[in-house]
């Protein structure tokens, strides 16, 4: 495995399976009454968050602490220093403090790549701009595997704002590596112009795709996209691309419903769908801690014996 986890595309099939299998082992730890392992004692993990994301930060924090690492939370938001200067200067500061791993969330695509030039520790991408969010894709794959078994040949549909979604980019890459067949569904305005070069299928017709899906992943749609003319109104978006009760009924019996959160209930997903037993949304959160433990463990602690 690479020293860093920056793009889901950097993971080979073996890497990805190793992370998922490691997470399975670590999940058993989470079921114990004492959840802590001594594996990363004395190692320092820095959570470097340039964007607010309480859920992702807490997830990484819990993962690192369960492995007994020292955790430093560095929230760089609101810093008066210009963004560029603060990234390099912050990197040098962390380097001086001896960070073994830096978990970075940043609003600019590629910021983790830049950070990796300036620190010696491992860089874990916790979401960069509209680029990638590889641990989200790993936890999604983990959640799917637990419900569906092997992902080989599984049909996964991802619906929503693909253009601006780091979750979608990482998922397409990882699911392709794991042998799944991915279909993206979105209004044409919310797909990159070059999406035909991605390793997946594309459709504008959600109703046509749903009956042939083993899992459907709904992406959050930000309301401000409406003002930029990506779609005419929330209602129209919801009618054409929302997963409501009627559409839910078109899914095969065993198919699952996913959402990376936070949800807009009533917009991209109806409340009763989000809360149905076939929804993995709450499991995804729990699995997030497990998969991040596996990632930190493998990057910092070496392969599992």
């Amino acid at each position, binding site marked *: 495995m690479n020293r860093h986890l920056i793009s889901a595309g950097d993971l080979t099939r073996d890497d990805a399976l190793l992370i998922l299998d490691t997470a399975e082992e670590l999940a058993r730890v989470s079921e114990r009454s004492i959840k802590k392992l001594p594996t990363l004692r004395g190692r320092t993990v820095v959570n470097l968050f340039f964007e607010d994301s309480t859920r992702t930060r807490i997830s990484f924090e819990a993962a690192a602490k369960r492995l007994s690492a020292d955790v430093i939370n560095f929230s760089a938001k609101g810093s008066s220093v210009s963004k560029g200067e603060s990234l390099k200067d912050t990197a040098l500061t962390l380097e001086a403090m001896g960070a073994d791993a830096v978990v970075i969330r940043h609003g600019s695509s*590629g910021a983790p790549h830049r950070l990796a030039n300036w620190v010696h520790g491992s860089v874990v991408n916790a979401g960069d701009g509209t680029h990638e969010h590889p641990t989200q894709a790993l936890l999604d794959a983990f959640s799917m595997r637990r419900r569906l078994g092997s992902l080989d040949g599984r049909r996964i549909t991802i619906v929503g704002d693909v253009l601006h979604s780091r979750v979608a980019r990482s998922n397409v890459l990882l699911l392709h590596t794991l042998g799944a067949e991915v279909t993206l569904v979105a209004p044409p305005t919310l797909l990159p112009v070059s999406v035909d070069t991605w390793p997946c299928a594309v459709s504008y017709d959600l109703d046509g795709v749903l009956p042939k899906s083993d899992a459907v992943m709904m992406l959050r749609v930000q309301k401000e996209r409406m003002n930029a003319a990506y779609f005419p109104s929330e209602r129209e978006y919801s009618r054409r691309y929302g997963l409501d009760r009627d559409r839910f009924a078109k899914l095969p019996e065993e198919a699952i419903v996913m959402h990376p959160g936070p949800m807009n209930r009533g917009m991209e997903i109806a409340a009763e769908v989000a809360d149905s037993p076939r929804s993995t949304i709450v499991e995804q959160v729990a699995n997030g801690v497990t998969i991040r433990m596996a990632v930190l463990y493998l990057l910092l602690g070496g392969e599992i014996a």
Partner: protein
Amino acid sequence: MIIHNVRILGGEPVDIRIADGVVAEVGTGLTGGEVIDGQGAVALPGLVDLHTHLREPGREDAETVLTGTQSAARGGYTAVHAMANTSPVADTAGVVEQVWRLGREYGLCDVHPVGAVTVGLDGRQLAELGAMADSAARVRVFSDDGKCVSDAVLMRRALEYVKAFDGVVAQHAQEPRLTEGAQMNEGVVSGRLGLTGWPAVAEEAIIARDCLLAAHVGSRLHVCHVSTAGSVEILRWAKSKGWNITAEVTPHHLLLTDDLVEESPAGAYNPIYKVNPPLRTRADVEALRAALADGTIDVVATDHAPHPVEDKETEWSAAAMGMVGLETALSVVQEAMIDTGLLDWAGVADRMSAAPARIGRLAGQGRPIEPGSPANITLYDPSVRTEVDPSAFASKSRNTPYTGMTLPGRVVATFLRGKPTVLEGKLA
């Protein structure tokens, strides 16, 4: 003074006698006075850049008129057009005269300020174009470069107004609404990298509109840094109508592609490749080379855009756009155009000296090396290949995309009206 053993436009070896800053005689076996050994170098008329950012006044940390003209001389240039996006903006006679006077004082390379089209480059009100034209700087090229004159009425008026003093509007073609937050060429790579795309149509739509406007009012139009295959097609069509339109391409758009943003020795997302207009695709590069070869694109212009280290050592979206180019231009053109057989040295002399001088209305520049011409001469050795070392640049800035690349050729000497500004590759 005699320059011994040079090959004018790559031809047979000759000697050049220079007297009083003028070419006095071209022949063989010339003797008498001071002799400089040309060692068989190619002699070109001194290069003329239509598009240079000297940064003074305002950003002297990036470049000054002194370091910028030193850089120009090292690159074989005897004249540069200094863009207007300084601070204060070159939108008054006072600012353009200041820049022009600094250039004269240093005497390394003629500095011809470009005047802003609109006050403060803000696209609302015409700057006092006539006052700049009538000033000591005799401004003939006007541009809001860095920003597009996107308002169609304002563009029309500017095109019309400068006719009174034989001026030209040099347009930075970038439709602003189509490029809000744009970071790189919109295509396969931007989609993968999650960087906001900069569509080719944003450039092409403005070029098409401006060609039609220029034709309608019978004015001269110059199009800055053409970067797409579609732009080339529009220009070819417009020129076929006989309209008075010229265009330039930068060296980097003749050589580099947007793949470098994803994969390069400098690492992914390295802002050294961030430039406006953005690097495009291989197909665009091929179209630009063909257009330069067939004359659809008239000029190579550097868009030399110096930035201090801290403005590039950032995450991609926070970084400044631009690359330095004066000291690598001729080598890149050799790599892209000469060594590929697309242009000969006469063609390079036209695209990098005669044509830009004509567009800028510079009487004393871009003239053939023959008796009576001002002795603006560049000696270039195309036979060597060297690794680009930015620490050796005369420019104050180091933001070159060619670091570590091996490029052909070396400027051996530059003469400005007979006075050597560069000898043996070093500032004289």
